[in-house]
Structure formats: structure tokens, C-alpha cells
């Protein structure tokens, strides 16, 4: 390994990233490597002092992502059982966020290619969906009921459940 030199390949080097709203963040290279996009940029020597611009990731989620990657990079291999448990606890706490932030994390983690975080955010969203009625899900995730009256009619023909949830309750509530 080129550990003796101060090249970009040095694993102790800090990588700078810039959020869409212009805030700068730093993280160890090992942390940045957890993002597929950042890793490719580093491999292509695009990581310079000015920082890697991330056009679609705002400062708030980026701070979280830097936090996530730094934590996970520090404990990437050869975990003891306790460390693995601690990382699990960290993840569980980390993802306790409101739906706006969860949404931002979903988009950002997907964009940056942070696999572990993507999975975490996806699972959290699925857990939020569980047990909710369609109307509650629309509320939670801000989804508009975009079924046309014709489609509702079709659902009604196919299935009584679907008919009842897409039409009358919203008017009765």
C-alpha cells in the first residue's frame, strides 16, 4: 500500500463535500468510500480542496450521511459482537427521524449510492407503512389520491375493500 506517501490514496486523508446549499463537510476517505459516487470521484482524482459538489443533497441530510458514513467506516471490518451490537443501536437511533428527513435520506442515500443507509431508510419507511390504512399512508407520505372516478369504479367492481377505502371513507371522515 502507498501508506508512506501523501497521495490521494492515503486512507487518512479527509474528503471534502459540498451540499447543494453550499455548506462544506469533511469526512475520512474510508467514510467517503462507503458512497459509490464519492468513491468513483476519488478514484478519478476529482476530490480536491474545493470539495466534491453534491448538487441534489442539501446540508441537513448531508450532515446525517457524513455522520453515518464516518461511524460505519470506523467500524467496517472485524467487528466484535459488542461492536456489531453498538452499530445496530446506532442505526436504530440514527433512523429515528421525521418523514421529511426520511424522505431526504432516501433520495440522498440512493443518489450517493450508500447501500447500508439506503437499506436502513427503506426498511424504516416500510415499517412506517405497515398497519396503516391507505388514507393514513397518504397523510404520512403526503400522497395525493389520484385514482380517477373510473378507476375507483373499476376497483369497486373487482374488490369491495378497495372500493370502500378509496371512496366513501374519505367523504365520511
Amino acid at each position, binding site marked *: 500500500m502507498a501508506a508512506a506517501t501523501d497521495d490521494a490514496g492515503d486512507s487518512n486523508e479527509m474528503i471534502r463535500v459540498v451540499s447543494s446549499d453550499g455548506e462544506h463537510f469533511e469526512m475520512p476517505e474510508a467514510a467517503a468510500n462507503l458512497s459509490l459516487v464519492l468513491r468513483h470521484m476519488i478514484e478519478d482524482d476529482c476530490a480536491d480542496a474545493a470539495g466534491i459538489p453534491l448538487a441534489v443533497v442539501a446540508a441537513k441530510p448531508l450532515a446525517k450521511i457524513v455522520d453515518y458514513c464516518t461511524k460505519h467506516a470506523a467500524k467496517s471490518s472485524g467487528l466484535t459482537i459488542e461492536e456489531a451490537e453498538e452499530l445496530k443501536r446506532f442505526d436504530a437511533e440514527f433512523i429515528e427521524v421525521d418523514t421529511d428527513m426520511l*424522505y431526504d435520506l432516501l433520495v440522498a442515500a440512493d443518489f450517493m449510492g450508500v447501500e447500508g443507509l439506503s437499506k436502513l431508510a427503506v426498511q424504516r419507511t*416500510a415499517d412506517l407503512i*405497515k398497519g396503516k390504512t391507505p388514507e393514513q399512508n397518504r397523510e404520512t407520505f403526503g400522497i395525493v389520491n*389520484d385514482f380517477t372516478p373510473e378507476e375507483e369504479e373499476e376497483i369497486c367492481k373487482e374488490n*369491495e*375493500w378497495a372500493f370502500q377505502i378509496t371512496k*366513501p371513507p374519505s367523504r365520511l371522515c
Partner: protein
Amino acid sequence: MAEMGAAAAVPVIPEDVVIEILARVPDPTSLFRCAAVCRRWRRLIAEPAFLRRRWPRGTGGAALLGFFAQRHQIQANARRKLTKLFPTRAPALVAAPDRGRNPPIGLGRRLFLTDFVRDDGATAGIFDQAKPVAARGGLLLMRVFPRAPSPPAQNVLHLCVCNLLTGKHDVLPPLQTACFDDDGVRGYAILTATDHRISRIPSGGYNTFFQVLLLGIHNGDHQVYLHRFFSTTATAIMPPSWSTPTNCSERTLGRVWGPYGNRVAAVSNGTAHWLFHGEGQSLYTLDVSIDADNIGATKLPLDALPIAVRMNRSSTWFRLETQGGPALWFFTQAIPVVAGKMFLGMESLSSVCIGEKSGTMLTLYHSDQNRAYVLNLPSGVITRVADWKRWFNYLTAVPFEINWPIDWALFGTT
């Protein structure tokens, strides 16, 4: 902006991320509800590739979610231990066996009716001790025991209908049962708007359109009476109420005993059927049309007992089906039961309830109620219900099935 409201934002989440989310929604009911949220989710869920991912080929019976069942009354000294397992006295969901391929329902935590239906407001606690009696088309009919008034009125039947998709429930007006004989209600049926084939909008303060049919035998004249309840009324002035009981024996049957086998009616082509014994070991179905006031009986051309409800000595099942038009019952086929080594004998294996849509039957030995099995009627394959525990009261087990709003044939359940 980071503060961008989710309303504008959600459509921007890449499609494959949404697919990943939907693929991780743990239980079929939740996923079903997702399909009714918006067009995009519905389209993604109805995608054959997605469905194959959730239900790989060969995992037939996915329409059967599980069984709702109430627990036996327990001793005080066992209560503490069970309180941990059962934080509520609402009926529990016993997951159907799914041959280990899908993530099991509930992912480690037992689900209860209260996970599907809100139990709050004026009727909070209504599901405590509730006994499921029938389910159909997403509706669950239960007998409930309201705390007020105290002491509870004698000879009164309280029923509650839950819609597991909307999470709402309706408590029906109490029904006086003083005229019923000692066995109380003999037969149940719950019907949805789908059975009526016409759109019916609930009225009279009800969340859902449904119809409940009850059969009782009068303690005086020993004749069968039908009690009917519609959640909607023709006139908006009167709230929905129980109909005046109709004497079925007078019209059709004469002296009968039963119903035989299942208390829950088989419903097909807009008619509910119960099986009765008549004079001289004859067998009848009582046929109640669900739209009109049309009650009839069909004598079954059978010598032996129809075995839709019992296994015979040669370990085969006979299935009875109604064939369009007038309800004619006949043997369709004998289905060999693919039995594993765990079966000591077939004779004592008894039917508990039948899931019509998925063609499954919950069965157990009366001599060993710790274990229950699901029999897939078309194939004869029998699978142990891992989730069944000795403290479930099999008399209250009701199969709960989902009608997917998408083409079920996509699943390739053969």
C-alpha cells in the same frame, strides 16, 4: 429546500427505491392497503415481477392471511406469563403457514385485531374477549361483550363488524335471543357489497356496507328462524335494524337438525347455504338469497354424509360445490391427502373452518389441540400451522383471506 413538504417531494423518490420499500412491507394486508393508496403504488405492486418477488411460484395460498382466534379463558396463575405474550384480550392473528419463503406476518411480534382496527373512542375495549364468528371479503364478524351496562343484560347478542382494510368497525344493534333454544345462534353469514353485485353505499351511520344473517332454532316451536341485518336502509329516516325473524322451517324444511358441520354459511352466486339434517337422515341445504326475501331448500342427492366437513376412513376428501344457477350440491372429487409421518390416524382429524377463496381448511385433532394443520383442498397438501398454540380456542378460529385487487392468476398458484 430541505424543508420541502413531502407532498411535493414523494414523486421524486426513484421508482426502484419505492419498489424496495414496498417489497419490505412485512405483511400482506399492509401491502394490499398500499395498492389502494395511489396509482403509482398500485401499478408497482401489480407488476408481475414484483408479485413474483413477494410470492415466488409454488407458494400458493397467499390469499390466506391467517386465522383470527380468541384464547381460552386462563387460570390466574398462568396469567402473568401470558400477559407478556398477549398484551391485549383482542383476538389474535394466527399466521397461515407459508412454507417459509415469505417473511412471516408480523416479523416476530404477534399481531392482534387491534393492529388492524382502531379500538378507541366511545367503544374502546370492545374487542376484549371478542369471539370471531365469520369473515368474508375483508370484513370480520365477531361476537362482543360490552362492559356497559353492568351487570350485562341476559339473552342479548352483541355483534361487531370490522373492516380490516379501513380499520373501522361497527357495533350492531343488540339482538334479543330469549326465543333461541339453548344452543343460541346456529348459523352465521356475513356478506359484502361484492356479493350483491351492485354498488351499495353504507348509510345510517355505518362505515361499510354489509349484511349479517343469523339462524336460530326457536325454543318453543323448534323451527329455524332467519334474522337479517342490513347496514343500509331503503329510507334514510329509520336507522338500520334487525329484520323481523323469518320462519324457514315453515316455508321449506319441515323439522330439521343442524346446521351440520360449519356454522358459517357457504356463499355462492348471491345465496348463502347451510347444511341441515332432515327427517330420515336426509340432507338439505337451506338456501337464503341475499338480495331478495327468497328462502329455499335443496335436498341433497346423497346417501353418505357430505364430507366437506369431515375426513372419511380412506383418507380422502369429498368436496361439495354449488354450480351456477340453482344450488345443487354434489360430490366433485376425492382428494387424496398428502400426509406426513406425523399423522397417527386420520379419523380424528376434524375440520375447524374453511377458507373458501384459498381453498384451505384449518384442521386439528380433538385429542391434541396443541397442533393445527392447514389442508389445501385442491392439492391435498397438509401443512402444520407453526403459529398455532394450545391456548387458542379452535371454536373461535375464523380464516381471514384477502381478495387482491389485481389479477390473482398472475401468481401461478398451480
